[in-house]
């Protein structure tokens, strides 16, 4: 026997050996340490606005998700709505919020978003307390799931999600850098749906997208049908992304439960509208994202109004981004199609498709509400489209309604949005699960704001002195590896010009690789070029389209960009600074020349870069 416990004589405990004393000390020590640690562990900071006994909103007009009460009292206890009535007997000590002249709405539901980063907090600042996500990474869903079940005090919207979408290898949905488990045929459907369910998907989203103008691989009809059937067998809804009327009709016939966009190619005839109605399908038109393709001005104007102060720098940059020229919709077709569907009684759900270009999480849902009224919905029907209708269609419990027992997600606005939808902008107070939501956007990483004066010289670099610039910090390679991507780049001086060669690889949300120059003395330190008019440079390349990007302004954010396509031979490219939407030349921090999508190797040469 060689076990340590067996070879010590137990009968002579007179002088304990060192190991036994050590054991005693360590043994007792750990319990003592645990006790001390537990007494020192951090406890939650108690909110001053916490109202454990609840509060009441008294005398407001109330739209409860389905109908309007001209005057009602609503009592909230902790995170739930306790009661609603035309008049409530309230305990005397309870805190009250005066609702006179105001309208109380259920927390809004955006039925088409993509969440990452600060999306949930961004949405809540605009009164959007529930997000129905139509594609994101499963990790985001899992992290949010416990929150929505706990229903605790939070400044963030609840998230329900499709998780990863159903598409083919190389199809729509695979270009964003989120790993996508693609389907090869109908036989994959059952396992694929089960895998989504295991990851926490609340429903299934399927992409039928043969491409906008260009050809794009997409799921064949047999696989679409198999996924819809598998979803139904596993008690999940199946919603579909389509962009053509014929695809919409096909998936309705297959038993799809909803469409996450309205088609954009032609207006349906009466028989086709009747098919949609009789199938019991719902439609999330996402008018605002399509409007952004033809006319982003109304969204920009909305950001200039009272809602603007709730936008973060990143959200502003998102609003300033534009779809490529190739993204087009026939706006009349889109609006007329929604009008016909709504008139026929097809359930219409408000969704923004934020954060696509020219949208901002939260803000864009308010624009969607207005657009739904231009498509024939009454203001009250538009509000229902952003509250009770999505809650019902997506089977989301306790949201989108003001009834006893529902989550205390509430929005108080000045005025009466049930008759004038633009009153939705006048947000007075927002509660998420009974907790008052802070309207101020979170602080982004502070940047150096000591603006340097522009140098006399206009020539930034001509590469006759190697890779250095004539002023400022100089050139560095830049790639999406910073954002988890895999693109590569290499900068060399070749015959007095900058040779940029590399490869764009999928892996980041927005892949890029290129060269960046900092005109200030330090990387990203701002220089005042407000007196200059244009960025000019000579370039030649491999025929691919490249982006010139300007990093500027007070906060970190997505740069303003302009695309250019240089040919085989050297040519001079002049980009007016004011054509970089959203850029602030008075605080110019960096200029990048990059390749972006699509994936593949590239080369670009540039020379004689001037800011003049």
């Amino acid at each position: 026997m060689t076990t340590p416990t067996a070879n010590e004589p137990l009968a002579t405990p007179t002088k304990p050996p060192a190991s036994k004393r050590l054991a005693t000390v360590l043994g007792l020590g750990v319990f003592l340490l645990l006790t001390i640690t537990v007494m020192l562990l951090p406890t939650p900071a108690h909110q001053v606005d916490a109202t454990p006994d609840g509060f009441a909103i008294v005398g407001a007009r109330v739209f409860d998700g389905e109908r309007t009460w001209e005057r009602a009292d609503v009592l909230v206890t902790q995170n739930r709505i306790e009661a609603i009535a035309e008049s409530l007997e309230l305990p005397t000590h309870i805190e009250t919020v005066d609702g006179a002249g105001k309208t109380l709405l259920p927390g809004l539901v955006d039925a088409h978003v993509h969440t990452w980063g600060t999306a949930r907090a961004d949405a809540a600042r605009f009164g959007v307390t529930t997000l129905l996500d139509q594609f994101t990474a499963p990790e985001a869903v899992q992290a949010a799931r416990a929150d929505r079940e706990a229903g605790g005090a939070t400044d963030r919207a609840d998230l329900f999600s499709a998780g990863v979408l159903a598409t083919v290898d190389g199809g729509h949905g695979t270009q964003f850098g989120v790993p996508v488990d693609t389907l090869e045929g109908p036989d994959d459907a059952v396992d694929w749906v089960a895998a989504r369910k295991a990851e926490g998907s609340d429903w299934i989203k399927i992409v039928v997208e043969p491409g906008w103008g260009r050809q794009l691989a997409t799921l064949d009809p047999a696989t679409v049908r198999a996924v819809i059937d598998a979803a139904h067998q596993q008690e999940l809804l199946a919603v579909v992304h389509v962009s053509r009327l014929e695809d919409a009709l096909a998936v309705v016939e297959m038993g799809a439960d909803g469409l996450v966009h309205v088609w954009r190619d032609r207006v349906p005839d009466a028989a086709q509208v009747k098919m949609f109605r009789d199938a019991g399908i719902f439609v999330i038109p996402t008018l605002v994202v399509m409007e952004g393709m033809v006319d982003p001005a109304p969204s920009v104007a909305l950001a200039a109004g009272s809602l603007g102060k709730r936008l973060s720098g990143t959200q502003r940059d998102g609003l300033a981004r534009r779809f490529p020229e190739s993204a087009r919709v026939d706006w009349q077709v889109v609006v007329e199609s929604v009008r016909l569907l709504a008139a026929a009684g097809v359930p219409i759900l408000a969704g923004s498709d934020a954060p696509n270009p020219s949208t901002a999480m939260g803000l864009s849902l308010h624009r969607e509400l207005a657009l739904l009224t231009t498509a024939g919905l009454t203001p009250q029907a538009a509000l229902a489209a952003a509250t009770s209708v999505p809650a019902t269609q997506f089977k989301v419990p306790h949201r989108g309604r003001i009834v006893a027992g529902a989550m205390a997600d509430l929005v108080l606005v000045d005025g009466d949005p049930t008759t004038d939808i633009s009153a939705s902008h006048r947000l007075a107070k927002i509660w998420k699960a009974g907790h008052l939501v802070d309207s101020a956007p979170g602080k982004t990483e502070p940047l150096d704001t000591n603006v340097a004066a522009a140098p006399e010289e206009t020539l930034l670099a001509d590469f006759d002195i190697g890779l250095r610039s004539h002023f400022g910090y100089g050139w560095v390679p830049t790639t999406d590896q910073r954002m988890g991507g895999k693109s590569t780049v290499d900068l060399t001086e070749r015959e007095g010009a900058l040779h940029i060669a590399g490869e764009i690889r999928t892996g980041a949300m927005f892949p890029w690789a290129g060269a960046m120059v900092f005109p200030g003395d330090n990387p990203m330190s701002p220089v005042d070029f407000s007196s200059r008019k244009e960025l000019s440079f000579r370039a030649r390349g491999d025929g691919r389209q490249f982006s010139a990007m300007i990093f500027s302004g007070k906060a970190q954010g997505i740069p303003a960009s302009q695309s250019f396509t240089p040919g085989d031979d050297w040519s001079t490219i002049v980009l007016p600074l004011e054509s970089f939407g959203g850029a602030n030349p008075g605080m110019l921090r960096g200029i990048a020349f990059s390749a972006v999508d699509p994936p593949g190797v590239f080369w670009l040469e540039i020379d004689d870069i001037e800011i003049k």
Partner: protein
Amino acid sequence: MITATLSELADSDRPNRKIDAFKTEVAYELVASWRQLDFALPTVLFPAVFYLFFGVFFGKGSGLATYLVATYGAFGVIGTGLLGFGIGIAVARESGELRLKRVTPAPPSALIGARLVTALWFSAVVLLELFVIAAALGDVRFERGQWLGLAGVLLAGTLPFGALGLAIGTHVSGKGAPAIVNLVYLPSAFLSGLWIPITMLPDFLQNLALFMPPFHLAQLALGVIGMDAGYPWQLHVGVLAGITVIASLIAMRGIRR
């Protein structure tokens, strides 16, 4: 029990003897466990490493980080109970160590008691790591009473699983023990919602959880922080007490063999 009678006789001249024997056993059991790094390291590190991965990297600042403190805590203490007893006793039995101990003045209750204290010690280490990581890296905040309650419930949770381990360890061989104990431990931990929230499992698996012993400990721990599934706590306590009694009876039969 004959041994009990014998030790009572031996104890008659020194009333402290039983306690001395117990203290000695505890000390050597601890030393022996530390020396067995292949047992000590996984037991002490796995819950914390898993928590770092799922709770901190995926769930920092969210409800997931909070939920997983309770469930990985349960996972940890169940491990120390099941593995320490299940594998430890089986190995000791096979090596003849148990038989040797019978001829020492230490009563069997001291042997079992020492193993329990050792298991509790490992549980305390696991909870210590987990709580510090959760608070420092996962931004988890609880009221003082909740931290205390969580530590108390989970430490106490070592007992039923120690008994369960004992029942297994007294009936299987030392070679077979790791396989069998892990076969019980890992699947039941998963099905009880210890690794990922139970609501993320398919419905039929969720129903299965009620029959998993770890589920009941996890629910008690989650109850402390208000994230349980809403079953009455008496159910969970009853099941765990039942497990302790039944497993102890089975273990006693095994010891007598």
